[in-house]
């Protein structure tokens, strides 16, 4: 029994470390993405692909794309002109506006006439299909446009997620090496030091309990700053205070393995480690914590 609870406590210590590191990595990643306007660029490129007329190869119909992306309802959403999020409603309104020619005909009819004159390609084919399905009902056309755009944005979300994962992995390994966070060394230390284990478990519990308040904090950079100070105070062995001369031969190989484990662990992301921590703490307390009665 003692062995089992020791293993559990070591795991809790490790998970707490990973969680704090993952929070820091997410914050850094957001900083990088923000500085490069990554989301905004991706959204702009996705819209260009949607409105392209050469089999979706990304060559936009210049007039149509410019009219939609340059519309105050789209570009106006961001002071730099690269909004990272555009509601479907804005897109459908901007698109219908772009397709209207201001003639006396009904708006639907104007859209039809413009689409009929577009060069053959993806944009024309898609818009013509949506118009046919709407069969003269402008409201229906708007709804179809919004669904079409939302579907495209869902795919874009998938692309962004993959990017995030690789970015976190790179950041994770950089953090592991840079701060010398060696999972194996930490596990070893915790295994041998019951006082340290108890301290970490107490910290984990405190964090888990306050989670209800902090997890809703929307700003990932702010969370990262909190996590950074918590990490600095964490009593686990990390950093380059020891003698660098130790890293030779088998010791170096073990350290490398420890860093890689840490890097991959960070790349799983903060939400994953948060759930893991919560699960482990519940297991340690033998069953779920009863809801506190008031």
């Amino acid at each position: 029994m003692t062995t089992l609870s020791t293993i559990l406590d070591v795991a809790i210590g490790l998970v707490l470390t990973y969680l704090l590191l993952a929070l820091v990595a997410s914050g850094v990643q957001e900083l990088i993405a923000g500085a490069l306007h990554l989301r905004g660029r991706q959204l702009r490129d996705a819209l260009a692909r949607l409105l392209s007329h050469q089999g979706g190869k990304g060559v936009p119909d210049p007039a149509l794309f410019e009219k939609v992306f340059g519309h105050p309802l789209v570009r106006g959403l961001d002071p730099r002109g690269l909004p990272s999020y555009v509601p479907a409603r804005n897109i459908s309104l901007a698109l219908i506006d772009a397709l209207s020619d201001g003639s006396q005909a009904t708006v639907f009819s104007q859209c039809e006439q413009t689409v009929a004159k577009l060069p053959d390609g993806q944009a024309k084919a898609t818009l013509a299909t949506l118009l046919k399905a709407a069969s003269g009902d402008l409201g229906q056309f708007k709804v179809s446009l919004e669904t079409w755009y939302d579907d495209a944005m869902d795919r874009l979300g998938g692309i962004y997620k993959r990017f995030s994962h690789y970015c976190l992995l790179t950041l994770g390994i950089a953090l592991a090496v840079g701060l010398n966070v060696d999972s194996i060394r930490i596990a070893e230390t915790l295994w041998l030091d019951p006082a340290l284990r108890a301290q970490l478990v107490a910290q984990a519990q405190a964090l888990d309990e306050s989670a209800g308040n902090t997890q809703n904090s929307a700003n990932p950079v702010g969370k990262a700053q909190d996590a950074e100070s918590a990490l600095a105070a964490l009593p686990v062995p990390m950093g380059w205070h020891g003698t660098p001369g130790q890293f030779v031969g088998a010791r170096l190989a073990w350290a490398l393995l420890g860093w890689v484990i840490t890097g991959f662990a960070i790349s799983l992301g903060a939400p994953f480690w948060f759930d893991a921590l919560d699960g482990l703490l519940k297991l340690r307390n033998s069953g779920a914590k009863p809801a506190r009665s008031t």
Partner: protein
Amino acid sequence: MSVAYMQEGLTLAPNWNNDPDLVLALQRDLRALGYLAGGLDGRYGPGTTRAVQALQYDLLHADASARATDGPETVTIASFNSIATVVGMSRVTQVTGIVDHATAACISRLLNDARVPKIPDAADPKDQNERALAAIGRQISEIAPTPFVRAIVMQESGGQHYHVPSGDDDKFLTVGLDHGDPMIPWRITSRGYGIGQHTLFHHPPHPHEVETLIADPVRNVQHTFGILRDKFDHFVVGPTSRADDRTAEHPLLPLRTCRYAPGDARYLRDCRRCAESARKIRLSAGVPVYPSATLQLRPDANYKSADYAGVPDRADFQCDWPYAVRRYNGAGNDSYHYQARVLLDLLRPLAP
């Protein structure tokens, strides 16, 4: 039985000192034979003159060689003139617009021949018309939308299967006469019969046509349903012909029967609601009938005073019956007037 105005030496002529009773008798006979559309007033005016000219033209030319495309007549009008020589009487030899003995004799022969069906009349035309309109309202048709057909009927005949007397005694079936030959302006090229103005190019009609398609308002209107459907299926987006207003306004959409699904109670039925929810436009002088139409196609091209306000926009209906209605009438400037009037009529509440 001979006619009252068939007397040796008697001539009825325009602006002549005619006996009004005899002229009225002549007008009734011309009406019954399908040469006069109305105006039974005992005065030998331009309308009567034109009717006599039309009859005389047919007596001279409407023989077996001049068959209409919609089937041969059972008997030709010209044969009633050529028989005169056989029985030793004088023939009609030219179109004069004057009723002489020879013309009166031909009228008499036409009236007495059972192969020449007479235009029917009604004892109580008003009652008959109301029953006819009610019967159309009750029609549940998958062929064409009833409200459109009803609006067409109002446009064609004012909803009058039988003429309702106004200052005269005309209770005959409504007949519309088309003079489609610019070279011979009095020649009648086709006739529209009854509430739906069922068109026949041959004359006289077959007796069975009079019995069924012409005299019976319900059968008459069913014919309208059929023709409207044919226009819808073949003359809006092809294959026979395309409606230019439809091509301009909905270049991409396939043919749309109704915004509601078959089985829905509103399917081909609730056209008034669609007319009401469509945006309203004004068709006024100088404005092309559709945005990219040529300048020749504008409401005042034929009628200087043309101005229609509050017309439901045909492009806003979510079905293609407004375009089919125009093709029901034809393709030129006038068809746009027809379309505007029918669409306006859709807004009118049904009589209780």
